[in-house]
């Protein structure tokens, strides 16, 4: 399919996805609508993670804190009388500033330190959220004032999912996308070819924080109540699992991953313990046997079923062209 045709098809598909989302949000009843909302909010946050973890292969464990940052900052600003749109934008901008600080320290380092550093950053943010009770009300949670009408929140949420995926699509296809994937493939070689790896990792982390923060704003507005337990590093693990299960760097990974990680346990009404055991086991199995994730695995099966010759080297991650499916 020629390039322009392909782009149009993807955009059209995303638009349809948005419409389906809107339909679900407006027609589902109570509990199911809430689950749908959660899955969609997580899909937006996971899209951000898909940039740094999915494309660049850098294990960011702080995404849940960016999620929380957007939620708390925008809600606090609202509480203090700021205009809703400004509160939302500042929630994102200030979270991105935090990401810059974290990135300046940890994005210059290699993967193992990055994992530890982001994990610890997330833990510190959680500590702050829990302990600064004067500001955040601590573990008991903080009620959130309405920024907009419920109807507008629903529309924003329904639009944001396809919009986030569309932005990811553009990034993945751009030179930045090439650079991110080169870091995943072989960071030293990428550096020798002239890729500014430290800079790119920082940018990727900041981009991921923007998605996370916006998701946080929407989460706060949709739920009306936020608490630190929604943004702990365990939640960060689950975001990681969502990306890994869906398939690193694939376009639809955030939607599929979030559905499996959030939607299925809620729908089946499993307790948190059982669902996380099941997710952990599933994640381990997928990581060890189908590194392309469920999307990659399904693609492999479909290819074999269609009788297409296997590529000589099995790819365990989306290649630059496959990242677009």
């Amino acid at each position: 399919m020629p390039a322009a045709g392909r782009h149009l098809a993807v955009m059209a598909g995303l638009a349809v996805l948005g419409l389906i989302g809107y339909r679900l949000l407006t027609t589902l009843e109570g509990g199911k609508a809430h689950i749908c909302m959660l899955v969609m909010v997580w899909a937006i946050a996971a899209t951000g993670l898909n940039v740094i973890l999915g494309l660049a292969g850098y294990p960011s464990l702080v995404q849940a804190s960016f999620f929380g940052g957007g939620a708390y900052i925008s809600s606090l600003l609202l509480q203090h009388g700021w205009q809703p749109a400004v509160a939302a934008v500042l929630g994102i901008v200030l979270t991105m500033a935090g990401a810059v600080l974290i990135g300046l320290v940890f994005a210059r380092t290699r993967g193992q330190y990055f994992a530890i550093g982001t994990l610890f950053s997330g833990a510190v943010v959680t500590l702050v959220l829990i302990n600064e009770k004067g500001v955040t009300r601590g573990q008991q949670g903080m009620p959130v004032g309405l920024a907009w009408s419920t109807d507008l929140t629903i529309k924003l949420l329904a639009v944001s999912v396809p919009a986030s995926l569309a932005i990811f699509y553009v990034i993945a296809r751009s030179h930045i996308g090439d650079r991110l994937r080169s870091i995943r493939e072989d960071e030293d070689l990428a550096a020798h070819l002239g890729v500014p790896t430290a800079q790119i990792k920082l940018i990727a982390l900041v981009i991921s924080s923007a998605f996370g923060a916006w998701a946080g704003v929407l989460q706060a507005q949709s739920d009306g109540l936020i608490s630190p337990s929604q943004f702990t590093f365990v939640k960060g693990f689950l975001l990681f699992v969502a990306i890994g299960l869906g398939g690193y760097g694939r376009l639809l990974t955030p939607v599929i991953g979030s559905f499996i990680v959030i939607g299925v346990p809620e729908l089946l009404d499993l307790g948190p313990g059982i669902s996380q055991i099941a997710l952990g086991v599933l994640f381990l199995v997928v990581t060890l046997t189908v590194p392309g994730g469920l999307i990659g695995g399904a693609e492999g099966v479909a290819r074999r079923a269609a009788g297409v010759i296997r590529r000589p080297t099995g790819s365990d991650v989306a290649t630059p062209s496959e990242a677009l499916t």
Partner: protein
Amino acid sequence: MGQVLVNGVFLGSLFAVVAVGLTLVYGVMEVPNFAHAGIIVLAAYATFEMSERGAPFVVAAIVGVAAGGVVSVATELFAYRWVRNNPAAAPAVALGLLLVMQNTALRAWGGEGKALDTPYQGVLVRFGGVSLSGVKLALIIFAAVSLVGLGLVLARTSLGRAVRAVAQDREAAAMLGIPIQQQYTLAFLIAGLLAGVSAVAYAPTFQITPYMADEVLLSAFVVVVVGGLGSVGGAVVGGLVLGVVESFGAYYISAAYQSAFGFVALVVILVARPGGLLGTNARRVA
């Protein structure tokens, strides 16, 4: 201030035991083993379970330490071994294992804290103006004994020397003809036993929950970074230093943010040396 220092030694001993286990595995696996927290938790619950069933403390403790070893080797056998040549997948494996282990503990024993009784818990030791509870003193003793014992094994036995070599530089060790898989499994066993020791020693000072090891693990990672990947001596020294730093921070600034001081240490180190204190094993292109 002496009190804070003594508390720092207690904390540091805990960090040292956990960090040594982490650094041995880190050296062979090149990835942070988050699952180590899960091993500590399961070892602690194993000890608790034995104790609840009426076993004397010594027996329960031995079971706990052994459980640590068994679980750790199991993680190598069923999970880590299969990503040995693909270190990029290891953080994912570590996360998956941690999720499974922590939530298994949650399902089996619930989320409320459990207390582990010990024969020495009523003891309070006083010297030079400071006091130290029996359980904390016991941890320091357990840590010291196991680390000295480990040190002897690593220095005096050929098996131990091989493990040290692999932890320091596994490609070089491979060239020396050391059978890598064996050393790898052995490193996990040792790390698991140390996790068991730390669980048995730590549990009575606090309480047993599925999340008891989370903050300790984070600080232990900082110790590994500071002390050098694969360096046992570095982990011991770094552990004690960080324990004292966090203890002072907790006392003079804020107890709730104790582990945040470990974070500050991590930030300082990585800003000064993004390659870590001793550099990484990254393959060079030219």
